[in-house]
C-alpha cells in the first residue's frame, strides 16, 4: 500500500486568501480565514488521500477529499464589518480550490479537454447549494470530480 506524500508540503493559504479576496470583491462580503482550521483541512485531506492506498492518486481524488474537508470544517467566517452574507461561502471557496486543482494539473486519467469555463452556471450553483444542504462523503465528492474532470 502506497503512502502519498506530495500534498503534505503544499501551503494552501495563499490560494485560499486569493479566492477570499475575489469573493470579497465580487460578492461584496468581508471574510476571515482561520489558519488552524485550514491546517486541519490539509491534515484530514491528506489522511483520506492516503486511504486510497495509491502512490500517485489522480487529481480528482485530491480535489474530492480537499473540498469535502473544506466544507466540513469551514475555515472561512465573516468579519464583523461585513455588510453582506452569502451562506455557502465555505462551499464556494472549497469548490473553487478543487476545480483549480483539476484545471491546472493533468494526469493519466484526466480529461485533457476539461475546462472550468465550460461548466454551466446552473451546475455550479446547484453544486454549491448541494454541498451546503445535502450529505456528501470524501468518496462521493471524489466521484463527482472523477465524473467531471477525468476521461472516460
Amino acid at each position, binding site marked *: 500500500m502506497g503512502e502519498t506524500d*506530495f*500534498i503534505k508540503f*503544499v*501551503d*494552501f493559504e*495563499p*490560494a485560499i486568501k*486569493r*479566492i477570499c479576496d*475575489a*469573493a470579497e470583491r*465580487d*460578492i*461584496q*462580503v468581508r471574510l476571515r480565514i482561520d489558519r488552524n482550521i485550514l491546517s486541519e483541512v490539509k491534515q484530514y485531506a491528506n489522511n483520506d488521500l492516503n486511504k*486510497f492506498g*495509491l*502512490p*500517485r*492518486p*489522480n*487529481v480528482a481524488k*485530491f480535489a474530492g477529499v480537499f473540498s469535502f474537508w473544506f466544507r466540513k470544517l469551514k475555515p472561512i467566517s465573516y468579519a464583523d464589518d*461585513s*455588510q*453582506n*452574507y*452569502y*451562506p455557502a461561502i465555505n462551499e*464556494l471557496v472549497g469548490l*473553487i*480550490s478543487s*476545480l*483549480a*486543482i*483539476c*484545471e*491546472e*494539473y493533468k*494526469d*493519466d*486519467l484526466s480529461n485533457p479537454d476539461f*475546462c*472550468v*469555463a465550460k461548466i454551466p*452556471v446552473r451546475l*455550479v*450553483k446547484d453544486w*454549491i447549494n448541494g454541498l451546503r444542504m445535502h450529505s456528501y462523503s470524501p468518496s462521493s465528492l471524489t466521484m463527482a470530480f472523477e465524473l467531471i474532470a477525468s476521461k472516460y
Partner: protein
Amino acid sequence: MTYLFGKGFKIDDYKMPGYEENKRNYEITTEGILEGVDSVISAFRKNGVFDELRKSCISQS
C-alpha cells in the same frame, strides 16, 4: 480473519476491484494551485457565477 461460507468460499479469495492507478508523476505546488485559482476566478467572472451568487446574498439591514 478468514470467513468460510457454506459452500467453501473463502472471503480472502475475493479481490476488490482496485482503483485504476495514475502512473504520471506530478507534484502539486502552492504556485500551481494559485495559477489554477486565477483561471477558475476568471472563468467565474466571465460566465457570471459571481454575479449570480451576489444576488443570493443577505444584506445587513
